[in-house]
């Protein structure tokens, strides 16, 4: 892979690029999905290719190919340069990159249990046991999934960087659906949208203990059929489970992407309310709100050693004591903002796509109260768990979320379950109303494996460190009727 990257970079330089980098990637993704007593999906997906990114005549060009022959590498490099030159006449200022020390390194992430040590038949057995336990509880649809991903990647640049990285990712989860007069009611373990996914080996499967949670998740799906509807009005809201991860993801993670702030997503995903003049000044949330971007967290789905510009993984502050203090950057956007260096957030969805600024692990740092204390301090509210639906405007201000389940709280105690609860708000007002964040005892990293961005579309796998948090006086129970 190293030699392939070197050849591509040399060819790009020879074709006239003032800067070039190449990423060669070997990717393997194994997935098992079971449903109602059968293996529904059992797949082993592989691809391999190389992408070349260049600056020529002051503009970017990028091309990807699966043809790794010498002729193929020369052709893809030349194509990237041609694309850059086609773009150049519209650009008044040439691309400038913040400095980055060229690194030569090799990083092989070791899993405690390599997925290859656990045969597919054993993975199927685990899920089939869960399937039986869920259906014994009487759910209509029992689903389980286990995935393993292995990515071997080499990065090289005309600046002299040469970095090899190997990583393993594991994902697993259960989903139970009951269907009745109240419609389809779904419960997931340990979280919705694919369960938990981490940059770890199959030791994660042992920790998740899917069979130990199968009956419980199915029982909740059944109970939801008889649960009340979510009340409408304003009350306190506690976010727990994966829902807090998605709240951070949509209302903080995306608006701090500096390419988005500078408008490059304006026609598609949108821009951001966190404009540069607000950096260091704007009150994003209450003093309880402390948010970091941390690509160095062990096992986080948004963790890595080097990003796709060869910049080392970093931890940086995004919101400190409620004040907005930092962005996610690339080398280009860091230079645009006047920063000396990037904080290393450029990642691409495989070899065929251009790196974009993506979330790493965006974390709500733990607070000081226990979850029990937060519930106990709530006079009237709802605790919502695990996302069902999400929507937010194109500057990331007005959001509306739906969850799988809510727990009604009265006088500090949980008094009942509600189905498909929803809530809505405006980002800085919502975070300003955060008056409690749970402590380290329940803090964990939740993987989000389906983050979409860019054109052509790219999917990133990112993480969020979360516990639970309370927000005062939030509008809940938003439906199609007033």
């Amino acid at each position: 892979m190293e030699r392939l990257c070197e050849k591509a970079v040399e060819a790009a330089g020879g074709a006239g690029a003032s800067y070039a980098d190449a990423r060669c990637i070997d990717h393997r993704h194994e997935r098992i999905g079971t449903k109602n007593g059968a293996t529904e999906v059992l797949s082993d997906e592989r691809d391999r290719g190389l992408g070349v990114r260049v600056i020529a005549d002051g503009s970017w060009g990028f091309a990807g190919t699966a043809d790794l022959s010498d002729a193929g590498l020369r052709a893809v490099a030349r194509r990237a340069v041609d694309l850059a030159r086609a773009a150049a006449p519209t650009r008044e200022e040439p691309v400038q990159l913040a400095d980055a020390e060229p690194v030569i390194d090799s990083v092989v992430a070791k899993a405690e249990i390599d997925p290859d040590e656990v045969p597919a038949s054993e993975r199927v057995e685990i899920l089939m046991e869960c399937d039986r336990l869920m259906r014994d509880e009487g759910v209509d649809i029992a689903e389980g999934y286990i995935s393993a991903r292995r990515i071997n990647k080499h990065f090289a640049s005309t600046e002299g960087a040469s970095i090899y990285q190997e990583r393993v990712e594991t994902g697993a989860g259960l989903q139970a659906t009951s269907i009745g007069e109240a419609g389809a009611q779904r419960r997931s373990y340990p979280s919705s949208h694919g369960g938990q996914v981490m940059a770890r080996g199959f030791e994660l499967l042992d920790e998740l203990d899917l069979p130990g949670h199968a009956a419980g998740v199915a029982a909740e799906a059944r109970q939801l059929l008889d649960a009340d509807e979510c009340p409408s009005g304003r009350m306190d809201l506690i976010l727990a489970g994966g829902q807090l991860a998605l709240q951070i993801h949509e209302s903080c993670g995306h608006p701090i992407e500096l390419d988005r702030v500078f408008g490059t997503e304006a026609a598609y995903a949108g821009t951001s309310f966190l404009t540069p003049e607000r950096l260091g000044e704007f009150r994003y949330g209450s003093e309880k709100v402390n948010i970091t971007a941390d690509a160095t967290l062990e096992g986080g789905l948004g963790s890595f050693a080097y990003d796709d510009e060869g910049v080392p993984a970093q931890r940086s502050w995004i919101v400190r004591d409620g004040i907005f203090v930092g962005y996610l950057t690339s080398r280009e956007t860091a230079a645009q903002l006047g920063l000396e260096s990037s904080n290393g957030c450029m990642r691409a969805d495989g070899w065929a796509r251009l790196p974009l600024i993506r979330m790493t692990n965006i974390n709500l740092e733990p607070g000081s109260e226990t979850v029990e204390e937060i519930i106990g301090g709530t006079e009237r509210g709802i605790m919502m768990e695990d996302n069902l639906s999400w929507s937010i405007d194109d500057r990331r201000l007005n959001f509306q979320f739906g969850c799988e389940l809510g727990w009604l709280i009265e006088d500090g105690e949980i008094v009942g379950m509600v189905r498909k609860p929803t809530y809505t708000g405006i980002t800085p007002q919502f975070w300003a109303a955060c008056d409690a964040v749970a402590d380290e005892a329940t803090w964990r990293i939740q993987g989000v494996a389906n983050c979409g961005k860019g054109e052509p579309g790219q999917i990133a796998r990112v993480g969020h460190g979360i516990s639970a948090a309370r927000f005062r006086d939030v509008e809940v129970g938003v439906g199609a009727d007033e």
Partner: protein
Amino acid sequence: MSEAMLLGRDEAMAICERALAASRADETEVNLLAAAEGLTRFADNHIHQNVAETNYHVIIRAAFENQVGIATTNDISSDGVEDALRRATVLAEVASPDERYPGLPAPGEQPTPLNGFTATAEFDAARRAQAARICIKVAKERGQSAAGACSTGVSAHAVANSLGVLAWQESTRANLRMVFSGDDSSGYAAKYAEDASEIQPRALAETAAGKCKRSANPKPFDPGRCDVVLEPAAVADMIWFLGISAFGGLAYHEGRSAISGRLGEQVCGDNIALIDDPLDPRGLRRAFDFEGVPCSRVELIADGVTGAVVHDSRTAKLEDARSTGHALPPSSSHGPVPMNLFLRPGGAAMDEMVGATDRGLLVTRFHYTNLVDPSAAVLTGMTRDGIFLIENGEVAGGVRNLRFTEAILEALSRVEMIGREGRLASYAWAPPLLIRDFHFSGTTEF
């Protein structure tokens, strides 16, 4: 078109047939896709991204009785395909039996031959950059900022199985979409087509610039129920979510659809007809699905009454129906979905629809729509890039963006007028609609 493809029909079929001949499974299926795509992206009045990729995708499904394994590769060499076949076969041997597995489809009618457009295959990076430059020029002339993307692609798809199915299609896609921004407003325009020569950059740019200008200085507007004229992009978004949540055979069979058990019932206004037609030339056509089954035209709603849902082989077996040729790739567990939706146009001009509205809103498009409750087809989303107040039958200026939360079938029960001229927005073609009492549930700050 064939000369523009990465892979010709004969070569593709030879790869598929070699894999079938080498297989020891009871049943084997090969999907082979080849694609070359380019995209030129612009923002802040310059091209900031210019990319191209070529790739292959081979998907092999092997079955021993009702145990199924799937493997993929992008290596189309003999070794690469044989390795994928071996991996699929090994997985099939350890899969648990699936009593609902329908078997691979047998050969039936031959799919309608489809070819792409040479004009699209020839629409290279220089042409894409030229389209972007035209948009940027118009924006600069108006003191606005242009952002958008121009993309073109050619692709080929072969499907072969051990029962004798052999299918081949070539297709092309072209698209130019843009948002022009001013100090406090924005405007959108887009064109999706198979034939790149249908894309008129200057006309689209003028539309986006006009919307941006007319929606400047937006006024607040209180949420609640009000009449709306939805332009085609907004309607297409809504019916796309209705299609994927309600009219797929799997969601229908499992009781997760808003129309489960309700075929033949009146579910919306009798002026509504919704069809999935993969061969309608107004859309992005497909001749067959990922099982090689020819795509059929399906009347989903006629006169407000549900007619049918779409099927692949699996859901056809479950519902004792025949496949309509809507299978997704075999590694997908989503089930079949309608991908070529058409909402039947009416007879109204846009001016008439605005003129018939005393007080309401004109909406260009929605943003980040999502299903709040798929089993009731309740949708939420934001307006974006051009929302206007209508007063006394006339457009009276821009308003701040709003959030809607609506049950789609109920909204389609309150359609008073349907436009006669529609547009394609990716997977759905739709005319504009005048809908009474549309539910806006919130507002934002711009």
